[in-house]
């Protein structure tokens, strides 16, 4: 694609801030800068400066500046959000604290609270006199003096934002809106979050949690985004700031500030969108992505070129009802510590050495054997080329720590112990992946596995073998895919509302009227970002359940089809069968209506080199099977691979951000756009 427009994707992580840049000559550039946790925007601006100064990027020609941020999540993890007041229907001020009464630690006798009480403890929660009924009818009119009383107490406690959550406000928001007016009349500096706007859906606890989180992070997110927008303006960046939302779509900073709670999980969503677009280029539409980092392994499913979305995600340890790309974390990664239980069983994780002190081989004081130490002993990673040679690994430290903590007590050789660590980890991760997919009603064998992060490509083939998966993909830059994903993500706005009627009792015009109201709301959000209607793909969906069921499924409604409601019903039965293993003809209910506006996904092919004779860089001794011992193995340099080139395993492909391990029985092929496709050869 020849254009002199440039695009920049920036993903802020805990350790590194990743940049992916589409240059004007079509080249893709990726690099990492150490994050600046105090003010994350510093590293962002540093990277922009580097692009301008070292890569001749003309800031005025930047047409997209997309950003994945952890600022919303960090405000929660670090408890640095606002002092929030919570106003509820009288008699229900403790709903936030009571929650759903379930506990996560089943065998603990020293329990900890399961609800986010810290958002608004009892002294900052007030009931006001009013009551709306289940049909939106007003049972008790709002007593404004009770609002003023609550407000006086909240102001004495210096709250900077207020969440308002009244019963059945999703059926009739009039009292919530009036309370906002009263608050702003008294103090225009207070930020107000209304449950009827943040999440107009039934179940009072879930709605209270998401609305109170919204109020909690609003000032922080607001401040951060306005600072960053200003700093980019100072750098004369032409494009306006776009933020990745947890559902996998971008939104302008202005909209993001109104609905900050949608920025949870902004980063991982970028990774999944990157995987989606990389897969799509080569026509792979069903993917399982496995992103293995230092402390965890993130698993996500893409089915028919759509990421699976769940309506509720986990922040800190709390369930928050925000639609999110369904990313499942299991506690296994390169930094996972290998240890022996009291009966001498070899265990790996969930404790991790993280990045500080990190694995023993980092030489930063790590004194526990980790998966990375084992990889080094097995010869899978090159001590001199780790992270592109930015720092050297200490192979002796890795060897000795495995010797002392694992090999000696188990009477094994160090090599066998290292192999054992990998085997246990792979078994654990394979079961984790299988569980994530079968839970959704999918058979992992129908998917292509995509290895992401520093460790994904190293373990991907072994995991695929365990899962009977035949194909593995390794994208161009598996280590900075979250940033790359930002470049191809659509701009998306999603608006939904409660509905609550039996499907057989509603007419199509009634549904259409509801959807159109949502659609015009979504459209006005798009218009704010200067996107015209002709560039927008519009889709509608209904959340549906059997009458009496407590959980629902999201079904796309195609208004162009012959009888849309009949089709919705059929599709519901089909999906119910997939997810829950059965479906029967029965009465169903519409729970929510939803409109989604998005711009088309942008796809861009990179290019592989045509020829090179420098692809084999060296050979290494690698141990992959205790029976055959160490084997002399070719090591390839990823940047010198050529289009169509085939590599038969065992072989290793090194690149700056990862190492791809191709075991015996597997062969790799370099696709047109330089993506690596690894395939299992024959049987055995």
């Amino acid at each position, binding site marked *: 694609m020849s254009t002199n427009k440039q695009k920049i994707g920036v993903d802020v992580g805990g350790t590194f801030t990743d940049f992916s840049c589409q240059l004007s000559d079509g080249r893709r550039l990726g690099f990492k800068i150490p994050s600046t946790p105090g003010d994350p925007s510093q590293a962002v601006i540093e990277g922009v400066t580097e692009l301008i100064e070292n890569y001749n990027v003309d800031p005025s020609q930047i047409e997209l500046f997309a950003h994945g941020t952890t600022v919303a999540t960090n405000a929660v993890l670090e408890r640095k959000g606002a002092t929030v007041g919570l106003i509820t229907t009288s*008699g229900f001020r403790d709903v936030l604290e009571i929650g759903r009464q*379930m506990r996560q630690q089943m065998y603990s006798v020293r329990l900890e609270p399961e609800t986010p009480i810290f958002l608004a403890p009892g002294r900052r929660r007030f009931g006001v006199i009013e009551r709306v009924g289940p049909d939106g009818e007003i049972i008790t009119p709002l007593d404004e003096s009770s609002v003023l009383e609550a407000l006086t107490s909240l102001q004495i406690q210096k709250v900077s934002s207020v969440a308002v959550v009244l019963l059945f406000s999703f059926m009739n928001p009039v009292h919530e809106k009036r309370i906002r007016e009263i608050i702003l009349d008294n103090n225009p500096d207070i930020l107000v979050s209304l449950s009827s706007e943040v999440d107009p859906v039934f179940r009072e606890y879930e709605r209270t949690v998401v609305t109170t989180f919204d109020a909690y992070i609003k000032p922080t997110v607001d401040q951060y985004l306005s600072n960053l927008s200003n700093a980019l303006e100072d750098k004369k960046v032409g494009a306006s700031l776009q933020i990745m939302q947890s559902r996998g779509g971008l939104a302008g900073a202005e909209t993001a500030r109104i609905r900050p709670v949608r920025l949870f999980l902004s980063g991982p969503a970028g990774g999944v969108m990157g995987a989606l677009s990389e897969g799509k280029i080569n026509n792979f539409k069903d993917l399982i992505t496995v992103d293995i980092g230092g402390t965890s392994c993130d698993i996500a499913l893409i089915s028919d070129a759509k990421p699976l979305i769940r309506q509720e995600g986990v922040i800190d340890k709390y369930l928050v009802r925000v639609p999110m790309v369904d990313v499942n974390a299991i506690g296994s990664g390169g930094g996972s510590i290998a240890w022996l239980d009291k009966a001498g*069983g070899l265990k790996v994780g969930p404790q991790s050495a993280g990045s500080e002190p990190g694995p023993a081989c980092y030489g930063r004081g790590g004194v526990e054997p980790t998966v990375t130490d084992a990889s080094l002993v097995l010869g899978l990673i090159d001590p001199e080329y780790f992270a592109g040679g930015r720092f050297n690994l200490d192979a002796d430290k890795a060897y000795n720590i495995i010797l002392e903590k694992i090999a000696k007590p188990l009477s094994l050789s160090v*090599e066998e112990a290292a192999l054992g660590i990998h085997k246990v980890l792979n078994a654990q991760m394979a079961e984790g992946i299988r569980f994530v997919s079968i839970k959704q*009603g999918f058979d992992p064998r129908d998917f292509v596995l995509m290895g992401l992060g520093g460790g994904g490509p190293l373990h991907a083939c072994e995991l695929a073998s365990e899962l009977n998966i035949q194909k593995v993909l390794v994208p161009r830059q598996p280590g900075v895919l979250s940033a790359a994903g930002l470049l191809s993500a659509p701009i998306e706005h999603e608006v939904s509302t409660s509905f609550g009627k039996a499907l057989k009792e509603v007419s199509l015009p009634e549904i259409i009227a509801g959807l159109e109201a949502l659609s015009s709301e979504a459209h006005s959000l798009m218009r704010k970002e200067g996107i015209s209607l002709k560039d927008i793909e519009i889709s509608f969906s209904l959340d549906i359940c059997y009458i009496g069921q407590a959980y629902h499924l999201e079904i796309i409604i195609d208004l162009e089809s012959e009888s849309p409601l009949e089709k919705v019903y059929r599709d519901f039965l089909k999906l119910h069968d997939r997810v829950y293993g059965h479906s029967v003809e029965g009465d169903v209910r519409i729970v929510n209506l939803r409109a989604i506006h998005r711009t088309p996904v942008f796809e861009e092919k990179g290019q592989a080199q045509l020829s090179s004779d420098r692809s084999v860089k060296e050979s290494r001794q690698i141990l992959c099977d205790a029976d055959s011992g160490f084997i002399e193995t070719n090591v390839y340099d990823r940047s010198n691979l050529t289009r169509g080139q085939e590599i038969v395993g065992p072989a290793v492909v090194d690149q700056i951000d990862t190492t791809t391990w191709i075991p015996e029985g597997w062969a790799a092929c370099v696709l047109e756009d330089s993506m690596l496709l690894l395939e299992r050869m024959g049987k055995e």
Partner: protein
Amino acid sequence: MGGLCIRGFNVVVRADGQRVMVQLKKDTPDAITTEVVRNKLEGIANEMQSTLFRSSFSPIVKEGLDASASLFTIGGETLAQAIALPFHLATLIPMVRKIIEEFKLDEMDDGDIYIMNDPYMGGTHLPDIALVMPVFSGGKLIAFSAAMTHHQDIGGMSPGSVPTNATEIFQEGIRIPPLKYSSKGIINDTLLKLLKLNVRLPDSFQGDLNAQIAACEIGRRRLCDLESRYGVEALKNIFADLLNRSELMTRQAIKALPDGSHSYVDYLDNDGIDLDMPIKIEVSVLVQGDSVHVDFTGTSQQVRGPFNLMPSGAYAAAYFAVHAMTDPSIPTNGGCFRPIKLILPTKSIVNPEEPAPVNARTSTMKRVAGCITSALGQFLPDRAPADAAGEMLLLAFGGDRVDGSRYVVGELIASGSGASEGMDGVDVIETDGTNCMNLPVEALEMDVPIRVHKTELSTGSGGSGKFRGGLGLIREYEILHGTVVFTHRGERHIHPARGLMGGEPGGKAYSKIKRRDGKEIVIKSKTVETLEIGDQILVQTAGGGGYGCPTERPEHLQRNDIADRKTLAR
């Protein structure tokens, strides 16, 4: 390192640090293979469980998580179990053993499936039906794959098959002895027809049975894969090794406790029939070296109402308490259960005789688990919490909607947990062996003509102490339409949760009916009443016990307690 590439050999470091070449071992299971297989077995159990939940019809499975899946050795020991509720720990064991005894290992065939539910032959209560599938690979029986589901209805005197006023098991539903549900792959149609005719929701009953078969089938298939990879003999050794490892670790954890004996006594309010007769639970826990004996001598005789608990339930409660109080990280399998023995006097509430009713046994199990935990706590004074209220208040409303349709809605409401050194108790939280969600007010009001006026923490209900007990909940309902049959099954109305180390007891539970004409009826823990339009119900669940002397609670925390409405201003 590197360069050591002689096929079949490797370097081993001897104890003196010298490296020598040794031939690599073949076929014998080692620590690594064992751990890999353990991960797979756990994965298989989880996959079975997920299939069971996904494919079941009953809301009690979907939302109450009342179902579980396990793998068993051919000796009838648990190999791996997916646990949604701790009270399912090991409850399948007596049923699997009964089936092995009844049908003999060498007479079993590939494609057989066994079924049973009878409590007096090893079951729990009648709604819990077990299916057990022998797993054959290479022509040999290698394991059992089993699933247990709480079915929504199993017949008997009341819809839902948990009548609080039952006085004999025959009123509770249909009893199924160990039978062949499928023989060499052919379902026993006669049996299925008979069962379906005896339950109120035959379609959902069959759907749930099919979900159980699907779960067992997953277990069978994946165990066969394992066998084809490792071989029968190697697997057998690994299974034995896994059980031994868990046993060893459990014994080590028990050994870390001081030897001795501690006892604990607590009470259930009543059995729902004889309302003024409290039910005594007495346990004496003896720790001797690396084993634990729990003696129930002194515990109440079996009762007329349905609160009797089968031995399998007492065992599950004991396993939960030992696991939670020692080392919950030990992989759960039959090995963990070997060091634990119970002494259960016959005709007592924990070992009743036919035909005593048993359907409401959960309340008893919770109190038994609490007693054993508190007795074990005396061995571990620094880790032990004060008593949790352990009250799971069950409410049921049955009536008509405005359009004439019938409804039955159930509510399960939790109480406060006990405080412990360094930690206040948690308000309104599920404890010990159960873990159910409450019902959102908005979900309730959208479905039935009942209005909720209040859902609030019960200020002052947590036991005072240096660390405060968790609070109970207050909820108020009003009947908006028709006549409603109301069931209330409470606990802790008479006997509060005790404090520890000078901490005070938690507040008692309290419930009343306020008739439209202003007349009030206090509920004695259990009742079934008829309500009319305008009648109101107030329920207040119990608080957890406090820990440490209340005067030692720092001034600023006392102020916070008042500001946050945890305690009343003095």
